């Protein structure tokens, strides 16, 4: 077996700020290796270094030794900017690969593809173009369970044939493979706490008609102190529903809301414009609860994606009802535990759109959106939903 990548005592720093210290690993040919590390531990930096971008394209100080033989490709988190060509055919640029399930996408254009499909095409384009090593940087982050399972299926079919280095913050998705930890990892989740449910807080009965989404009969009731999860595939209308309740989307029907609410969007990039984290949050107590006090003086845009997400939750206005859109994407295990704790211990009502299975354990009810219909769903339906596409 040939060793493709070998790193010894590796450290990287940007402008004197160390990203990671004395990291050691080696990658053999046709090995499937997973590197796990929390938010801000330097996973992406490691990927960029191994893909050849860092000394060449981005300037950084590198200490220690590392050798890379062969060509290295990399797949990033966000599928959209990696897609340069107009059609799938042009993007892959080779003959149609058999048995990976993209036959039906072959002639489609970029604008017809969903995020998950784009990511799958990116993966196949990388695998089919003779890369020796492929680095995957949290590729499942923006995908729904169905698309994630399809993605994992392709990975499984290439296992043992290609060298793959997977960088992620969670370890739930792969069974016992070679694992390396970058930074320390903690896994301790709070226990479910039951809250008493009060009087009716929200009653909604409406129909929405929007491009790409149409629903005739949405019926939703929410009580004080109730935690409700909303699941559904990407593009099934979870965000639209939350926005309709928040009054951002025109609807036909009524939304009766008895109290004030606060809405947290999926992408945290759109909200921050203050000069520091402290100004964004306002209250010291809240900052301490979310563990952001060390970043208090930082400029919000300088934070990592996961930290921004946490800040977007911390800077929500107090209300009786929280509408959260994917509150745990980009968060590592420790930060996820913080969010679970927050949802678990607060007395307010929550309506949470999510792909995170663990989060469903802290909710009283689970609602599923499918084909424009909203329905209550049992634990077997949830199980089936998370196994779809396998």
């Amino acid at each position: 077996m040939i060793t493709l990548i070998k790193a010894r005592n590796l450290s990287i720093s940007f402008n004197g700020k160390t990203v990671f210290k004395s990291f050691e690993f080696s990658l053999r040919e046709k090995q499937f290796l997973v590197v796990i590390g929390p938010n801000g531990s330097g996973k992406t930096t490691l990927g960029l270094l191994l893909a050849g971008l860092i000394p060449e394209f981005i300037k950084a100080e590198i200490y220690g030794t590392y050798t890379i033989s062969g060509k290295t490709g990399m797949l990033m988190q966000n599928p959209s900017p990696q897609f340069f060509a107009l059609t799938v055919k042009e993007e892959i640029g080779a003959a149609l690969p058999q048995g990976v399930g993209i036959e039906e996408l072959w002639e489609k254009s970029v604008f017809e593809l969903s995020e998950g499909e784009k990511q799958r095409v990116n993966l196949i384009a990388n695998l089919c173009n003779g890369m020796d090593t492929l680095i995957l940087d949290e590729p499942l982050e923006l995908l729904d369970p169905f698309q994630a399972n399809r993605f994992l299926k392709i990975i499984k079919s290439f296992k043992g044939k290609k060298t793959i280095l997977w960088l992620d913050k969670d370890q739930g998705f792969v069974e016992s493979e070679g694992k390396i930890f970058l930074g320390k990892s903690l896994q301790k989740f709070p226990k479910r706490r039951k809250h008493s449910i009060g009087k009716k807080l929200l009653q909604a009965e409406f129909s929405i008609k929007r491009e790409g989404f149409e629903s005739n009969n949405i019926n939703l009731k929410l009580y004080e102190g109730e935690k409700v999860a909303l699941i559904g595939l990407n593009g099934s209308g979870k965000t639209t529903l939350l926005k309709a309740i928040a009054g951002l989307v025109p609807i036909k029907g009524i939304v009766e809301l008895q109290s004030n609410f606060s809405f947290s969007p999926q992408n945290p990039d759109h909200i921050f414009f203050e000069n520091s984290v402290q100004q964004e949050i306002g209250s010291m107590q809240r900052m301490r609860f979310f563990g952001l006090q060390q970043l208090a003086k930082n400029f919000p845009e300088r934070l990592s994606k996961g930290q921004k997400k946490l800040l977007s939750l911390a800077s929500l206005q107090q209300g009786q009802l929280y509408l959260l859109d994917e509150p745990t994407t980009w968060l590592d295990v420790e930060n996820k535990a913080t969010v679970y704790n927050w949802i678990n211990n607060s007395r307010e009502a929550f309506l949470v759109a999510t792909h995170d299975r663990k989060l469903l354990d802290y909710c009283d009810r689970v609602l599923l959106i499918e084909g424009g219909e909203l329905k209550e769903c049992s634990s077997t339906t949830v199980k089936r939903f998370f196994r779809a596409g396998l």
Partner: protein
Amino acid sequence: MFLYNSKTVFSCWPLTPKLLIAFLLPGLSFLTQEPLHQAIMLGFVLLLLVIARYSELPKLLLSLLPFILLTDAVFIFLLPEIPNIFRVVLTANLRIYVVLLSFAFFSYTTDVFSIVKAMKRTRIPETVYLSLYIVLRFLPEMEQDLKEIRELNKLKGVSWKKPVRFLQAHFLPLLLIIFQRTEELSIAYFLRKKRENKD
């Protein structure tokens, strides 16, 4: 605005006749001084737009009208000594409509990427067409971002009453998102170039 998934009667046409309409017709309208000729050309473009089912045609025509009338009034008021002033003004007005509507026809019936594809075929250097392509490819996403920002600011209660804060809340996030996008894009492009160089 350009269309991304245009489905009009003229979408299946090749680029050349549409380009001819979009550039030759305005050119012709500058050559002639007859209001009748202008009217014929305008009628032709209007007919094309009606066939293409351009839904915003009345809106476009009406929204231009006040500006045109205003400029006409100023023109007539300032230069009363020109002979046949009304005829000149009428020609100018019709000309404005011909130019604008023929471009509207072009942009409405043409899929933007057919322009990029045509540029690719003529072997224009990659640096030229790629930048145009990237602008067009990511414009819808930026529009989406701006929409999202506007909605969130509405929820936060940021309004025009505090103009500085309003501008800050809208344009700071947008600017930072654009920088982030460019960084992501340049990394993705670098990786892609590496993938394509098979040596």
